[in-house]
């Protein structure tokens, strides 16, 4: 079955900026994190993506993560320093 691309918005928690992405069901959360981090020239480091209160699992496909068109996700740094 052919799936159609859909658009979501990813927000940068640190700056409030947002970017729209066109994705397919088979894309993964990891891919969104990498694309968004690259788009905003983020430092190399750990980040997570969340939808509402839920942190999304990196390896999950957008279908598995129940990401749908017009969803707003947020990219947040996952601080690992001590």
């Amino acid at each position, binding site marked *: 079955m052919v799936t159609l691309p859909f658009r979501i918005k990813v927000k940068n928690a640190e700056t409030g900026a947002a970017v729209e992405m066109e994705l397919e069901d088979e894309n993964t959360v990891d891919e969104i994190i990498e694309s968004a981090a690259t788009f905003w020239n983020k430092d*190399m480091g750990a980040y*997570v993506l969340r939808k509402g209160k839920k942190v999304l699992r990196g*390896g999950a496909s957008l279908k598995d993560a129940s990401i749908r068109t017009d969803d707003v996700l947020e990219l947040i740094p*996952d*601080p690992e*320093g*001590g």
Partner: protein
Amino acid sequence: MDEERLDRSRRIGWLNLDAIARARILMVGAGALGNEVGKCLALSGFRHVTVVDMDHVVGSNLNRCLFFSKEDASGRRLKAEVVAQGMNALSPDMEAVPVPTRIEEMSDPGFHDHDVVLGCLDNIAARLHVNARAYQAGRVYIDGGMEGLTGKVMVVRPPKGACIQCGMNRSHARVAGLRFSCTGKDVVFHEPRLAAEITTTSIVSALMVREAVKHVSGRGEMLLANTLYYDGQRNVAEEAEVQVNPDCPVHGGI
């Protein structure tokens, strides 16, 4: 009553100071977070703390480490020893014991012999190790992390709920093994990176010890359900839910 050290703490009805005095705490990491966590543990009435860290004090630690001095840095004293000594000085009842070794080299009974594990670490590899060992031992693991003005606290409560590894993704895998501090020549520097600063350190460590106090006092229902992200730039602190990853090896996955 003004002469009793913990009188004001006793006024918090649900605090179980006897349980706190009996609890055995394993504190892994004696850097910036370890200094502040150690301070809060000592002043909260904890008495039995094992402090594990293999590193030495250096000058760049001094902007955020209560127990470290210039002399400790010039003498390259072991962080575990300096922090344990400082904790013992803060509270007459404190019996902090330094273990100057890598946590990976600590013997097996180490985790089983403690009631709570507090992670004050600066790298993902060590976090994953402590997470797995604490989970296997069935001990609550409270992990703190910080970077600049952002911080995170996660409470892992085996056998329920997600663990540190469940919440990691490919971006974590890329930086696993690097240390996110500036503590000496053995560090793999990870640039560009915001320097850690004391106010974020204080907030994250205070939250960690508060969760330990709740757990030891038998108030599990008050514990942080999962993860709290703190952003000091926006003055926001929000809980988020990390879900169990079916592939997580700690949970018996792949």
